[in-house]
């Protein structure tokens, strides 16, 4: 098979931000009719490379050739005109407009200045049919699921310019069947000769759909490989540059320490605790040093349950006991007084404060619990912050950098540091590993195990069953805003067993 010439070729790409070399001599090739995965940890330079390609950033060195001609993008519009389209993680469409309007917004078919609505709808339907989608194109976009919206975005992108399509984390909020549907669309486009650049944190998906992959680490090119020829373990090693001993270490850890935690005193116990419209009344006991996993689908009430235990929402039924005493958590401060910490799943809107520095973000919760009149002395702040930047390997290790400049995984670590310095007895973490890379994921899992060994109770909420199984002593399964089953994490319990419960409801 002779190699065709690449539709896109980037050589020696260099991009420097103040104090950081984000891309250092990176080469990247994209062939027509292939799905190419861009792999790397958070902060490896994936996003920067994509932003260079889409014209958001100008480069400081290197060359870009598109279809054989040298190009230099100075804006997103220019890059789009040249044939590069992007569909981002968060769908950038107007959900209040119709499907057809969304596809043709800004380039509606016109005659004598009037929009030809009929023709527009017809073309939209044809375009979607090409992707095997059969939608009512005059229905408002928000009547469709996120997955369909994403495919509409892809349809639009492909119609605008069909040479290069960039999909940045398209699957992060889709369920399994929706992912399948998306992959079908991607394969269809591939057959039509579109070059697709695919970014995902899900290794299985990368292996399922991609033909070739490029690995970046710390802004440098590690290599380009045929997906079929590179085993998963090797890929992960190339991405994080170290052996996966950390993860192996964690295996069976949960079982090992089980005996101890089952006998420990309960920190918190809820009886019939619930909130109308959010989560049905549930019973739950969490012992010191115990890791309790919350499993369930998106919208099954995982977050709602966690929020009740932190006082972020108020319970309207049932009782809650902390250390054997009845308490009512009216606010997060009240929960914090009892040594409960909560890291939200919405990192950007409910977690970090982007404009504040790493240091300020880390000390925030501790400072809030001390009250404004008792500032933490600066020397003490620096001490604590340095300690946790080192312990959690927050990169870049600059306490005075604004948090919004950090990658997702590092922002997550900052959030964890914020709660760890309050020395909680119960740490509630909601989706701490979502959208972050394998390396950071392993580090966070390791941290949870260490906390548990140190006697801290952890309520671990995650959509990834594998992760829940690896860490938890016991697993609470939620379905349709109801806690349906509590499983001791023993030998016989595996992902299939949990999925059965999720699918069929309570087994008792």
């Amino acid at each position, binding site marked *: 098979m002779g190699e065709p010439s690449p539709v896109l070729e980037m050589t020696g790409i260099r991009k420097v931000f103040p104090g950081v070399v984000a891309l250092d001599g990176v080469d990247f090739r994209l062939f027509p009719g292939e799905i190419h995965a861009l792999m790397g940890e958070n902060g490896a330079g994936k996003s920067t490379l994509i932003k260079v390609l889409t014209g958001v950033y100008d480069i400081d060195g290197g060359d870009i050739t598109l279809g054989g001609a040298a190009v230099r993008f100075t804006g997103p519009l220019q890059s789009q005109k040249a044939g590069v389209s992007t569909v981002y993680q968060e769908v950038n469409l107007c959900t209040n407009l119709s499907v057809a309007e969304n596809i043709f917004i800004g380039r509606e078919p016109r005659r004598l200045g009037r929009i030809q609505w009929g023709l527009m709808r017809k073309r939209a339907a044809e375009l979607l049919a090409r992707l095997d989608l059969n939608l009512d194109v005059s229905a408002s976009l928000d009547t469709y699921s996120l997955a369909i919206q994403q495919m509409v975005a892809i349809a639009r992108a492909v119609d605008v310019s069909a040479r290069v399509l960039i999909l940045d984390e398209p699957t992060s909020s889709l369920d399994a069947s929706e992912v399948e549907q998306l992959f079908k669309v991607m394969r269809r486009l591939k057959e039509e000769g579109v070059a697709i650049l695919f970014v995902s944190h899900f290794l299985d998906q990368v292996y399922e759909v991609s033909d070739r992959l490029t690995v970046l680490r710390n802004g440098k090119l590690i290599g380009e490989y045929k997906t079929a020829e590179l085993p998963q373990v090797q890929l992960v090693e190339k991405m994080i540059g170290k052996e996966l001993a950390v993860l192996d270490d964690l295996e069976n850890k949960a079982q090992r320490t089980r005996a101890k935690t089952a006998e420990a005193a309960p920190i918190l116990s809820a009886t019939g605790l619930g909130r109308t419209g959010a989560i049905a009344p549930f019973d739950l006991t969490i012992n010191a040093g115990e890791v309790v996993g919350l499993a369930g689908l998106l919208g099954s009430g995982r977050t709602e349950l966690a929020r009740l235990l932190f006082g972020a929402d108020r319970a309207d039924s049932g009782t809650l006991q902390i250390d054997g005493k009845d308490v009512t958590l009216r606010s997060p*401060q009240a929960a914090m007084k009892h040594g409960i910490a909560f890291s939200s799943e919405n990192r950007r809107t409910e977690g970090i404060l982007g404009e*504040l520095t790493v240091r300020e973000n880390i000390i*925030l919760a501790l400072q809030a619990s001390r009250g404004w009149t008792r500032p933490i002395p600066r020397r003490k702040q620096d001490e604590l912050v340095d300690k946790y930047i080192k312990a959690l390997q927050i990169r870049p290790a600059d306490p005075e950098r604004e948090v919004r400049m950090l990658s997702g995984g590092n922002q997550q670590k900052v959030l964890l540091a914020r709660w760890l310095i309050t020395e909680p007895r119960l740490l509630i973490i909601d989706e701490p590993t979502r959208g972050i890379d394998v390396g950071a994921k392993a580090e966070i899992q390791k941290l949870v195990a260490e906390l548990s060994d140190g006697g801290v109770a952890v309520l671990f909420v995650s959509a990834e069953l594998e992760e829940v199984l690896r860490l938890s002593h016991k697993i609470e399964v939620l379905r349709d805003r109801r806690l349906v089953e509590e499983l001791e994490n023993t030998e016989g319990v595996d992902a299939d067993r949990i999925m059965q419960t999720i699918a069929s409801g309570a087994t008792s």
Partner: protein
Amino acid sequence: MTILKNRLFWPAVILVALLVVNMFTSNQFITVRDGHLFGTLPDILRGSAPLLLVALGMTLVIATGGIDLSVGSVMAISGAVACLLISDLGNQNSVGSVLLIIGVAIVVSLVLGLWNGALVAAVGIQPIIATLILMVAGRGVAQLITDGQIINVQSSPYATIATGFFLAMPVAFLIAVGAVVLTVLLTRRTALGLLLESVGGSPTASRLAGIRSRRITVMTYVVSGGLAGLAGLIYSANIKSADSISAGNLIELDAILAVVIGGTALIGGRFSIAGTVIGALLIQTLGVTVVAVGVPSKATLLFKAVIVVALCLSQSATFRQKVFGRIKPRPATAVRAEVPA
């Protein structure tokens, strides 16, 4: 180069430039007469006191992502309360009574601030609407207090807070400086500044970090009310009367402008008190300069607007890059041109 990038560089340059203009146009820029400072500069400092005070409170409110439109009306009410009580005094020159009355007027202003804060943080009305209520109603209240009249007072202790001198410096300016120092200590020596910026950055994230967002928000409106009340006292002491119509009229806009010039974004978050001080002094100096250089009175507002536009443009990174930034990318392009060759 770093000093050029500082947001306060251009406002400071313009402020100094305006002062230099005044040095040449005014007969007496600064001299010592009767043991205290005299001339244009001390006048500017004295005259800037009300705006400084109001802008200071506004900075804190804006840092939480709010806005306080009612400051002008609070000024009117506080002046009205003070003048009404002083005019009822048997001896208007009694220092003790005047101090007590000043205290009463400030407490009233704090309560008005609390009203704003409650509407915003407890009831959940948008700040611009919540404070608009008091902005409109407040002038009415002030007129009711004065019974629609302009109340004149003949109290030398009261006049002192506006026109007096202490250690050769104008008392009004010293009051403003005192308020600035207090606010800096209050926000930067405690954790209040950080918590304020956090609430301004995201109230939801702040609440989940255990910060009592509401309490902090209410506090900023209370402080803003108190400082506006103090400004109202200085204003009315200066004219020795309570004028409910023109006291603090449109001062909210100058104050917002001062805050923005000082580099605090209207969406909340990071705030700069030093910036606000420069902003307020600049606006005051601009007003004086416009008169001094003889811009016709019909054109003064327009002239002021032109300066403000220029100032805002100078602070916009995008604009600076478009106009001056061309110089930098060129060497980079030249290097790249050599590579293929």
